[in-house]
């Protein structure tokens, strides 16, 4: 079963972070990704650019309406994701707890729906 691991954290933490600390965290993410790969569960993932780069698009009355910014302002922002393939929720939660940002952010685990 595939689970989406959505990584939410306050972007300010990272923009204010000293460079050395940032480098250490990136390294930690690198190791975590390798661990997912070694376990054979990794299906995809990416870091996302900050929300100030986001554009939200809606189709209203047949017209495309684009607005600057994320679809909703939140205290913690979606900053990246992993897609993993696990036997069950317990395994997915186990991996979610190991995401480096779990220490200062929130990790949302969502099962994927498969339409066969």
């Amino acid at each position: 079963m595939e689970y989406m691991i959505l990584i939410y954290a306050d972007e300010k933490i990272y923009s204010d972070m000293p460079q050395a600390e940032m480098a250490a965290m990136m390294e930690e993410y690198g190791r975590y990704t390798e661990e997912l790969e070694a376990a054979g569960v990794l299906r995809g993932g990416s870091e996302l650019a900050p929300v100030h780069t986001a554009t939200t698009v809606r189709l209203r009355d047949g017209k495309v309406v684009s607005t600057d910014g994320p679809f909703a302002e939140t205290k913690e922002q979606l900053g990246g994701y992993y897609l993993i393939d696990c036997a069950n929720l317990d395994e997915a939660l186990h991996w979610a707890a190991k995401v480096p940002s779990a220490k200062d952010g929130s990790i949302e685990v969502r099962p994927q729906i498969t339409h066969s």
Partner: protein
Amino acid sequence: MLAKAIEQLCRREGGKVLAGLIRRFGDISLAEDLLQDAYRKALERWPREGLPHNPAAWLTTVARNEGLDQLRRNAALLPDSAEVLAQQAACTDEEAAQQPAPLISGSASVDDDRLRLIFICCHPALAPNVQAPLALRMLCGLSTREIARAFCEAETTVAQRIVRAKRKIAAAKIPFVVPQRTELPQRLALVLQVIYLVFNEGYGATEGQRLVRTELCAEAIRLGRLMEELMPDEAEVLGLLALMRLQHARSGARVAPDGGLLTLPEQDRSQWDRAAIEEGTALLDRALRLARPGPYQIQAAIAALHSKAQRAEETDWEQIAALYGALLRHLPTPVVELNAAVAQGMAHGPAEGLARLRALEESGRLQSSHYLLSAKAEFHGRLGDFRAALAEYDRALALVGNAVEHRYLSQRRMAAEREVLSSSHACGA
């Protein structure tokens, strides 16, 4: 009448059967549907064919066969069904009994479907307010109405929560397993809580004609033993098991021959189950040696003090009141406060108890509790104020849901009324 007896029997065996069906079919809703269908067939066939030798096995076989039929019908359409069917084909009932499905690697050694069921109900991914209701529903076969009553919630709210939780278990694939050893400690508190809830539902049934539903107490104790096997050095696991053994040891003496309720001072103490008391006390000693105190151990210690008194008058209320004080620090709930107030009253006089009960009632934290009102009535009676006692019994009677408790309170009320009448006669004479 026969239909009613069959329904009760089904309910009693239901948790056992359901847990097995969930493991076999990996789908709670399907398992529940199959069980309901088996109940219907039992109602139809048992009156004609007689009661089966082993009702649980009968229900399991009927439900499983129906489930396999359904899977076969679906197999052509859904690849998932074909997969489950292939697994099922290789697994007969006898094999399933001898070789339970393997637990995940590195997990604890205890294997039991009902223990898995309790762990799935207490899964941290489920909302806290649905965990216990779900367990009572699936493990004990309580109706949504009974659960709603036990938690003072609306029936529709409880029903919705349960439906949502079951959907999440299926959609997010919450596994039907006993968790790995490393995860057990953080999953423990909830599981113990739910086991004790099951026990309490059996010990003081919130609804219905019978006061003690022995099968629920026995099931809770059985689950407690499995937890002990799983975590033999966990003080609170031992504490809970000790508590349940000590309380259940008095079950037989709690119910009068006419089905009425007997309180501690009224019970024939020779009817207490001495072997159970000894086992409970030994478990408590084992727990205390681990030097990690907790609420279950304190409650077990209180139960042990009651068990030690040969006569009600010999009860060490001082010590019990002190233990309730300690319990309040772990478990500052209104119900514990109520018990602490009663113990204080028993240790230091009815006026003291009454003052504490009044304070608790005025705080508004324990509203509409017939226990609070009947405790006040008792202390009023001890102080000789039977008019006040009578008024409190009337208020308590308006709230009580269990028929046996209702009868008990009516008797106490009548006794108070007699006192009021005889004192007014005395005045008149």
